[in-house]
């Protein structure tokens, strides 16, 4: 007789584990905090792939700390698959031998320990991904068996409200649950009625009310008081030489002070350039507080968010024409969708970096920190699958002298990828370097690939205090390198620039100085900022923005 092949091993395994766990789980899937370690020991087996919801912002910190308390003879050698590992507990799991392998996208404050643990053999690195790439692998070869997730509220049945900071939760739960895995949620509160259901109870196996609210980091709050005059100069150059030049309507802004300066200068310098209604109408962006003045002045049609931002809840809820607001009246962020839009749909990514090499490759990696880049590479690249056109995308593509070498006469656009940097960073460290520290990191941490955030062929513009290098207009590598040298100032790379070559590049509009662009350096003062401090942001918001305590100086 032919042996009947068993097709439900995954479900059976899950059922066995849940049977062992059942004594910890009460009505409405509720687990008492004191039982959580026992529950984890019951449902997790050695070598399992486990996701601890570690987002850019909200963190399943109670579950992470609870996992650290399991009996190591029962639970060990786990393979962690998660977006970010910013909590000390995430790395403590490796120190304790509970976890062994890591596939992730962003290291944050633990980047130094990631590097150290790899070197010491405590952590086996799978790969450093982008968010989308990792999400993709959740549905391919890195599906979690158990996911420890994080929500604001649960109701008595186990439905979850992830609300403002929904972030990665849907993608994690969908991948886990639809491969018959186990989903355990920590929530700040269990309530009778949720504002809305973000995750249905049927996809959740256990809910624990965390003894304290989950940790969340206001990562995207930039205090306007800290914006410098050189950042304002760079913002002026970007607005005039790129935003206005290409009429960029859709974009993502990176996290640094340059983009904060740009946001705060939309109602002033941007208005003067006549960009309202043309630029920044569609954005993929967390709710940056520094966007408030531009939003109030009617610049923006829509913003979809990867995550939330502490203090922006009420303001965002009060601007439903701009943000993606649910029927309950609150935002739902979603990293997977925002990253998809950021990869395929936007015309421009603009952000900063720590280092740029002579060919235009850039990285924020330093020699002893395995940080990863989160979503930046997906936005800071030309999406090859893009098939819709917009004027900015087409114009940038049309500039590429080498396009014809590859696809003949066929028109095709190109994403604008802008790196805005000062030629020297803090402590007079040069931004333009012969070799990225990413090489040293690869060597130190034993990673085969130097972690590059944005490859040179994707970068279309470099903005420094010396001017803009329009790399999209360079016909070959020599021209590209010369253009980079021309804006690299007094760095060793910049000193290689030949005055006559730079002159030629300026005439060809491949390099433009502030003077070439008609940007008056003397106007680069803080007077151009629509809000100069947190207090003024609050005023712009009509009192709706409530800055986190650490950002308040009144």
């Amino acid at each position, binding site marked *: 007789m032919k042996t009947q092949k068993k097709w439900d091993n995954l479900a059976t395994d899950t059922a066995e584990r849940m049977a062992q766990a059942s004594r910890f789980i009460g009505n409405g899937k509720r687990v008492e905090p004191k039982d959580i370690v026992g529950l984890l020991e019951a449902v997790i087996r050695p070598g399992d792939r486990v996701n601890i919801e570690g987002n850019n912002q909200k963190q399943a910190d109670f579950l992470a700390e609870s996992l650290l308390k399991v009996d190591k003879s029962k639970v060990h050698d786990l393979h962690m698959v998660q977006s970010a590992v910013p909590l000390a507990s995430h790395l403590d799991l490796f120190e304790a031998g509970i976890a062994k392998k890591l596939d992730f996208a962003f290291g944050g404050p633990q980047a130094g320990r990631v590097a150290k643990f790899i070197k010491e053999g405590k952590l086996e690195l799978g790969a450093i991904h982008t968010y989308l790439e990792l999400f993709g692998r959740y549905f391919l070869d890195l599906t979690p068996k158990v996911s420890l997730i994080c929500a604001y509220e649960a109701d008595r049945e186990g439905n979850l409200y992830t609300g403002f900071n929904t972030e990665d939760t849907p993608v994690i739960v969908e991948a886990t649950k639809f491969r018959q895995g186990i989903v355990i949620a920590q929530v700040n509160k269990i309530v009778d009625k949720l504002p809305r259901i973000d995750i249905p109870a049927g996809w959740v196996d256990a809910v624990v009310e965390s003894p304290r609210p989950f940790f969340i980091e206001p990562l995207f709050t930039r205090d306007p008081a800290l914006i410098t005059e*050189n950042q304002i100069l760079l913002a002026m150059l970007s607005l005039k030489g790129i935003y206005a030049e290409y009429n960029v309507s859709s974009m993502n802004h990176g996290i640094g002070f340059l983009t904060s300066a740009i946001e705060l200068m939309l109602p002033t310098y941007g208005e003067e350039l006549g960009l309202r209604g043309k630029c920044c109408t569609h954005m993929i962006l967390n709710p940056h507080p520094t966007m408030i003045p531009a939003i109030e002045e009617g610049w923006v049609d829509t913003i979809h968010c990867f995550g939330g931002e502490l203090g922006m809840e009420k303001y965002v809820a009060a601007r439903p024409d701009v943000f993606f607001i649910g029927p309950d009246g609150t935002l739902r962020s979603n990293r997977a969708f925002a990253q998809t839009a950021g990869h395929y749909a936007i015309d421009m990514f603009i952000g900063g970096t720590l280092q740029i090499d002579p060919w235009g490759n850039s990285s924020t990696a330093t020699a002893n920190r395995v940080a990863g880049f989160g979503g930046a590479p997906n936005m800071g690249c030309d999406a090859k699958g893009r098939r819709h056109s917009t004027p900015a995308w087409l114009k940038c593509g049309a500039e590429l002298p080498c396009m014809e070498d590859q696809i003949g006469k066929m028109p095709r656009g190109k994403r604008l990828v802008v790196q805005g940097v*000062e*030629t020297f960073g*803090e402590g007079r460290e040069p931004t333009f370097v012969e070799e990225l520290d990413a090489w040293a990191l690869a060597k130190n941490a034993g990673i085969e690939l130097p972690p590059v955030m944005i490859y040179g062929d994707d970068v279309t513009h470099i903005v420094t205090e010396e001017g803009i290098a329009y790399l999209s207009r360079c016909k070959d590598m020599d021209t590209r390198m010369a253009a980079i040298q021309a804006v690299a*100032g*007094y760095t060793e790379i910049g000193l290689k620039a030949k005055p006559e070559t730079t002159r030629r590049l300026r005439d060809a509009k491949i390099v433009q100085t502030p003077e070439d662009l008609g940007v008056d350096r*003397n106007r680069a003062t803080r007077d151009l900022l629509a809000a100069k401090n947190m207090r003024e942001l609050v005023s712009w918001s009509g009192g709706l923005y409530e800055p986190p305590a650490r950002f308040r100086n009144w």
Partner: protein
Amino acid sequence: MALNTLEFECKSTAATVAVAKPVHFGVVGSGDLEILMSPAKNDGAVKVKVVTPVTGFDDLWRRVVGAFVENAKLGNVSIEINDNNATPAVVTLRLRQTLAEAAA
């Protein structure tokens, strides 16, 4: 350990701009500097004195200030700088601002 003092001269190829009166600009914050710019009969050249806790950037100072003097066509001026690790971008910005102050 004492402070590092760097003194040099630079000359613009077309020195036509001078300052009428001594001016002071800037604050020696972290990563910032202050500048005194005063008229000085100096055969068309610009005398520069930089006082800084940071060593090893002598060539950089010569280049940055030299380029400023050249672009501004500055001559017969003395420039005194107290620095606290300012980047070339900040140095250039403050030099421009000081000169603008002198013209005001």
